[in-house]
């Protein structure tokens, strides 16, 4: 349980930058194998592709730091995306976006309140709400793809015109920066960390643990909603199952980034590196013409290995 300070510097660096090492390794390999990889266009491409997942990863990192999970974000993304596209024609984009945001926040708040007030584990609560929200999406969309004329309704700002960094990426980066600041520099962030790291200790220190836990859920919901808008803006349409499955990818990216499953610590930029690693992987598969079936194999190996690079067995 206790370890010596001395000589652990290397280990700590490995911990801190391990995921970057993994990323650099994968990127080097793809660069060596494909001339199309290390181009501005392709890089912008990948940044754009990472925007939605990156946004979700920011929320998930914060949430996991407070000691919870959210499996319902995929459904929430579908719901808010569908709402944005569905409502924009009648009420205009800004209002539709506001409605979607409100819905995301409510979804997050309900999840959080159930977790906190009923004391049920977040995994099972959000497994339930994943299904529940999926049902709502299906009911709202009548099981059909919701398509909007995005460009005519302001959503187009998120469509990617690939000239320079697309707007979605900017949104993601700004939110990531703000949240990094909040987590590392403000009392709210500190209290979130404490609430996840040791709720009893936080409680005894006078911190309103429940509030910070719910807050993280609300943030997650809000970011899922923004993610839904980005998604809708980027694709111009959204099918009722659009987001499903993204929760596992996001959780994988966050864990690859080294955020603790036990709560209490984590870092947003490393989660983003994790997201980017997965994007690069997908990009590399397409550039290098890897057989789809082997893609599954390679992806599995990379996920495990990139964590293994920097995980040292904790000495008890």
């Amino acid at each position, binding site marked *: 349980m206790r370890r010596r300070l001395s000589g652990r510097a290397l280990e700590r660096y490995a911990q801190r930058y391990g995921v970057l090492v993994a990323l650099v390794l994968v990127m080097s390999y793809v660069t060596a194998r494909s001339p199309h990889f290390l181009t501005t266009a392709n890089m912008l*491409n990948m940044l754009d592709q990472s925007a*939605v997942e990156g946004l979700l990863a920011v929320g998930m990192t914060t949430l996991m730091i407070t000691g919870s999970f959210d499996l319902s974000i995929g459904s929430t993304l579908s719901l808010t995306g569908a709402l944005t596209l569905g409502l924009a024609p009648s009420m205009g984009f800004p209002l539709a976006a506001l409605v979607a945001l409100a819905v995301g926040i409510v979804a997050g708040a309900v999840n959080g309140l159930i977790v906190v007030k009923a004391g049920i584990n977040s995994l099972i609560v959000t497994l339930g709400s994943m299904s529940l929200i*999926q049902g709502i999406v299906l009911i709202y969309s009548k099981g059909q793809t919701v398509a909007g004329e995005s460009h005519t309704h302001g959503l187009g700002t998120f469509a990617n015109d690939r000239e320079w960094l697309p707007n979605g990426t900017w949104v993601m980066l700004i939110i990531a920066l703000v949240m990094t600041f909040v987590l590392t520099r403000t009392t709210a962030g500190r209290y979130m960390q404490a609430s996840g790291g040791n709720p009893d200790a936080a409680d005894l220190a006078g911190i309103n643990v429940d509030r910070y836990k719910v807050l993280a859920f609300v943030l997650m919901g809000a970011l899922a909603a923004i993610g839904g808008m980005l998604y809708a803006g980027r*694709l111009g349409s959204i*099918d*009722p199952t659009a987001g499903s*499955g993204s929760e596992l990818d996001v959780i994988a990216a966050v864990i690859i980034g080294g955020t603790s499953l036990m709560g209490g610590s984590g870092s947003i930029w490393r989660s983003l590196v994790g997201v980017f690693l997965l994007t690069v992987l997908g990009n590399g598969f*397409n550039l290098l013409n890897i057989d789809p079936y082997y893609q599954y194999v390679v992806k599995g190996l990379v996920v495990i290995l990139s964590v293994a690079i920097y995980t040292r067995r904790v000495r008890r």
Partner: protein
Amino acid sequence: SSSKNSTPADSSSDSGVSTPSGSGAAAPAKHYNFGASVIGTAFPAVVSFDNGLKAAAATQNVTLTIADGGAKADKQVNDLHDFTSRGVDAIIVNPLDSVSIEAPVKAALAAGIPVAEFGQIGKGTDCAYPGTVGSVGYDENGWAKKEGEETMKLLPNGGNVAILSGLAGLASTKIRDDVYKQTIAAQSNIKVVADQPGDFAADKARAAMENILQAHPDLDLVYAADDTMAVAAVQAIKAAHRLDKIKVIGIGGSKAAMASIKAGEMTATVWSSLEVAGQDIIKMLVDHINGTNTAMGQCIQLPQVLVDSSNIAEYADKGQF
């Protein structure tokens, strides 16, 4: 309201790859890199299409990259952008969602890469996307309608029908369910007593069928939205010793369904050769690049065949996935 510009597929649909008429393919063909973005390579039906692509690519000296959309529209958009980044010679897209691919397809076209589509025909828009070489398509509406008509034929005196629908939220689930119901609505004595999801999965479909059998001792026909579910339904009905009273129809023409029809268990299915679609689309693109057929916006529709005991002999080994 689908528009059919030309239907050269008819000629080649029965015999696999046939030498395309009029294309000068005698000289050693030039080598090309094609990228194909499909909705998911873990779906057996898509794999049949892929196999057609691969077979044709091999004969036409095309190196094919197949990107697995994993049933996610955003992944597919990424894949398409990646192909454009890489600068492939042509792109084949099997869209999960027709709207979301608009932007990446436009980007590809802007980069001078020809695009062809394999997908659902009859969405109410033009058959092929503007600017693309063309589209080879199947017709979800047609399939469901055919099975609806078959139902009316099988139940001239009316009866009780159960529907096993697909995974909620997928476009085909909705079409296959709605169009079927609209069709049989023409005959008022046919009653849909149960409409339950089997999620295109065998175990879910079997369980749903078992449960429906409990609730409806007077069932006459089961319509399954695909053959995987239809075959699972047959098993459930057989285990309940009610196969003599209940007819089962499906969609897709899978190997197992063909075998089942041959064995006299399943009643009917609709078949369209996805493999041929793969071949047609490669040929369409190669011809376009070689300049042998420069027509844009071509539209090829796959023929649909209702397979039942009357023609099973002919189709028994044409089952796919």
